Every structure is written in C-alpha cells, then in structure tokens.
C-alpha cells in the first residue's frame, strides 16, 4: 500500500508540520517515507504545501502529483490541488475557511470544520490536528497512537506540554470522520 498525500494551506496553518508528523509516524512504524516541501518565492499568507509519501515500497518520486489523499486548509489550496486527487481518492476540506465544495464526483470528500472544532477546544492553532485526525481515521495511513509517540520529535521536548490539547484535537477529528463514514 502506498499513501501519496498533498497537504496545503496558508503559510502559518502548520501544513509543513502536519506533513512532518505523518512522515515521522510512518518511519516510526517501519514504513518507507518521504517529505517534500514546496519551496520558492511566495508572498506572506500565500500557499504552502508539502507532499508526503508513506509506503511499504521504497519511495520513487517524492513529488506527489497523483494523490491518494489531499488536505486543503484554505480556498487557494482547494483551487490548486483538487485536480491532483486520484479517482477514488480522498479530499479533506477545512470547511471553516472554505465555503465551496469540491466539483469532483469521482472522489470522496470530507468537509471538516477544523477551525471551529479547534476553537471549541480552546486553541485555533490545533485546527491542523483536527484534520489530521480525520485523515488518519479515513485512510489509516498511520496508527493514531503513533502521532503521540513522535510528537516531540517534530516539535521538540519544550512543546511536550502542548501534546494534551493536540491529542484532543486529533481525537476529535478522528471521531468526526468516523461519524461521517458510518
């Protein structure tokens, strides 16, 4: 099984870190992984994205163009990456910030109100974790427990105390997606 994902949003929404969490978690589980950021001249508030591959096979191209799952945290990202979802693949839309729905009919779309859910937990900055929980629930790319096991590898020991709220956000997203799938 090969998961090829694109995670995209505004600079500052934590999309690079989300990708790193998935990559670390995949490596932690003994899978082959790669993480490839978009880099280049970009204005503040512009689009940031990364490609993450978690696979049982050695990773070929680290650039994801035919994605099994795409996460979009803002509208420009939906406009840009909607077409990259493989038929039958998954698209996760942050419905708190994106009003329009996907025009694709050959993919599964999950609209997750990530910012509202994060706000309800007391910190909008964990919106990405809500979406990540949903991604894990739907795709099974990694085990949800793996995220906790590698959290400080991405964010450092100093942020270990932030795991609690991140864990809540992750589990909330996971539960929302499971409900949608039921």
């Amino acid at each position, binding site marked *: 099984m090969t998961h090829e994902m694109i995670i995209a949003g505004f600079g500052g929404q934590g999309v690079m870190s989300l990708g790193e969490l998935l990559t670390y978690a995949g490596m932690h589980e003994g899978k082959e992984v790669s993480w490839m950021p978009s*880099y280049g001249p970009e204005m503040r508030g512009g689009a940031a994205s990364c490609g993450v591959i978690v696979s049982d096979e050695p990773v070929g191209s680290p650039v994801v163009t035919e994605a099994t799952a795409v996460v979009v945290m803002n509208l420009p990202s939906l406009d840009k990456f909607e077409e990259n979802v493989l038929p039958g693949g998954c698209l996760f839309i942050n419905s708190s910030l994106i009003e329009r729905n996907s025009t694709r009919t050959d993919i599964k779309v999950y609209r997750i109100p990530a910012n509202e859910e994060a706000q309800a937990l007391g910190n909008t900055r964990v919106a990405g974790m809500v979406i990540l929980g949903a991604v894990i629930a739907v795709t099974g790319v990694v085990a949800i427990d793996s995220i906790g096991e590698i959290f400080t590898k991405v964010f450092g020991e100093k942020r270990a105390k932030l795991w609690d709220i991140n864990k809540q956000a992750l589990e909330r997203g996971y539960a929302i997606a499971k409900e949608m799938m039921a």
Partner: protein
Amino acid sequence: MSKILMKGNEAIAEAAIQAGCRYFFGYPITPQNQIPEYMSRRLPQVGGCFLQAESEVAAINMVYGAGGAGARAMTSSSSPGISLKQEGISYIAGAQVPCVIVNMMRGGPGLGSIQPSQSDYYQATRGGGHGDYRCVVLAPSTVQEAVDMMAEGFDIADQYRIPVILCGDGMLGQMMEPVEMGRYTPRKLPEKTWATTGMGSRKTPNIINSLYIDAAILEQKNAELAAIYDEISANETKWESYRMEDADYMVVAYGTTARIAKSAITKIRAEYGIKVGLLRPMTLWPFPSAAIAEAAAKVKAVLTVEMSTGQMVDDVRLAIAGSKPVEFLGRSGGMIPAPREIIDKLVEMAGGKA
C-alpha cells in the same frame, strides 16, 4: 545505528562532518542554505571552522588553501554560485588539491530560478573552468545515498588528489527522508606527504601551485593528470541497474529524475505491460558508458530523461554510438517531470500497448 529523518541539505552537512570535514567556506544561495546553516552550528562543536566568505570566489580559494594544507575542506553552493567558483576549481585541479564541492542545482542560465534543475551537467562533467581537467562528479538520488556519497567523496578526493563534485538539486536538498549515518566504510588512504604543513624534518619545501611556465613540463603534468583520470575511470565508475533483466526499453536518468523514472516504470509495467528498466549513472564523471552500451544492446530503444533541455543525452548517444534510437524527455527552468509524462513518452515510443 537507527534511522533519523533529515532534510537532504542537513544530512549532507552532517555526513561531511562525520567524514572528518572540519573546514567549510561558503556564501549563501538558495536552495542549499541549510548546508552552511547546519555547518555554522555544528562545526564549532567539533573544533572545526565555519566561515562565510565575502564571495563564492573567496570561498573556493579558501578551500584551495585549507585543502592544500592537508585538511578535509568543502564548499557548497547552487548553480550561479558554482559558476563563480570555476576559476578556483581549475586551480585546485591543476594543483591536485583534494576537496569536495556540493552543487544543489537550480534552474539557469543566469540567476535563473531557485527550483530544482540538472542543467549544470555539462559544467560539472566537462571541467567548467579552463584547462584540461576533470572532477569526479557524484549524483545521489536519495538522501541516504547523498550521505554515503559524501563520505566516499572525501576519500576519492584524497586518494586521487582531485576535486570531487556532489551534484544534487533543490529537490534533494529540501526533501526529508530517513537516513542512517556511518554506513560507509572508510578506505585506507596514503599519508598527505605533499601537504603544506611546514618543513618539519623535510629537506625540501612542499609547494602547492598550478603554474608550469615551461610548456614541456606542463605537457608532462597534463599527461600525469590524464593517467590519473584513466585510473579513476577504471576504478570509480558507478551505476545502478533497475528492472533491466527483462526490459525492452531503457530509461537513462540520474539524481532525483531517476527516482521519478522509477515511479513511472512501476506504473507503466502495471498499466500497460510495457517492460521498461532504468540505468542510473551514480557517477556522471566518470560516465558509465560501457554499462550503458551493454544494456542498450538488449533493448529496442532508449529514453534519456533530465531536468535540462538535453545534456547527459549527449553522453548516452556517444556510449550507444547510434546502435539504438535514443529519445529525450526534458523539463527545464525548475520544472519537475511527472511520472505520467515519462509514461506517455514511453507508450508513444512503444507504439501503444506492449
């Protein structure tokens, strides 16, 4: 040792330190800035020296000096910066000073773009600077391979007293992959009896120089260098052969483009049943001409894929010497070929389904 997740640039820097590199001279340029950044933090911890020079020209000449004194020294840059270093590289080659130069290639010519490219192939493999010289050119396609090649690169440089260029691109520098340090077993190397370390008990001074004003003596020097280059060609040529056993078509690609080709090969075999393999040069100089010629004899046609408008394809054509058709697919300017483009081209070459 366990695997850690590292950015290509950072992994290259750490590998250099673990290979004994203690001197880094450089000047910032995207997309390789994590190398000097990492070096500036790590080298003082191991008693080394990180120096941000006033220019690329200064940096390569500092490498010339440190390497001449027998130290393991390196510089890194990206395409426009590497152009500025060419004069120094020519002097280093002439003076036979070992060193490692990292080029994380970006789109050109001129200032170009900051996105991945492979358009410095000619520059790296044909000398780049003036005079009759070669650099050993290593082309890793994964972060792990970059780590292994960095360690071996310093050994090759010392063994043959030659500048070694590690040619990656922005993609390899920016991506993260699991790596394991210290996989490479160091070679047994001769003492650097030629290094300028002070007279000590020696009777004659060691001099590092590339000036041979007498034409006959310079010709002799050129012949000595040519003999070393022949020895390197015989001993150090490396390539990977991937799914070539039953292949009807051969892709030749190096670096990150080769891994994109591997993705395409997996898909085209599954979707179309067209049997495609890959021959991946791991050294761009010396170039694996014999391996390519031998592999080409068993296939119907060859496709060279590069992030350029066609540079390595010349060497592929020279190797095959017209015995099989050689097609070319290239993206340039910092654009990256998608596996699908390679598949479409191969399907066209195969005339549809196999």
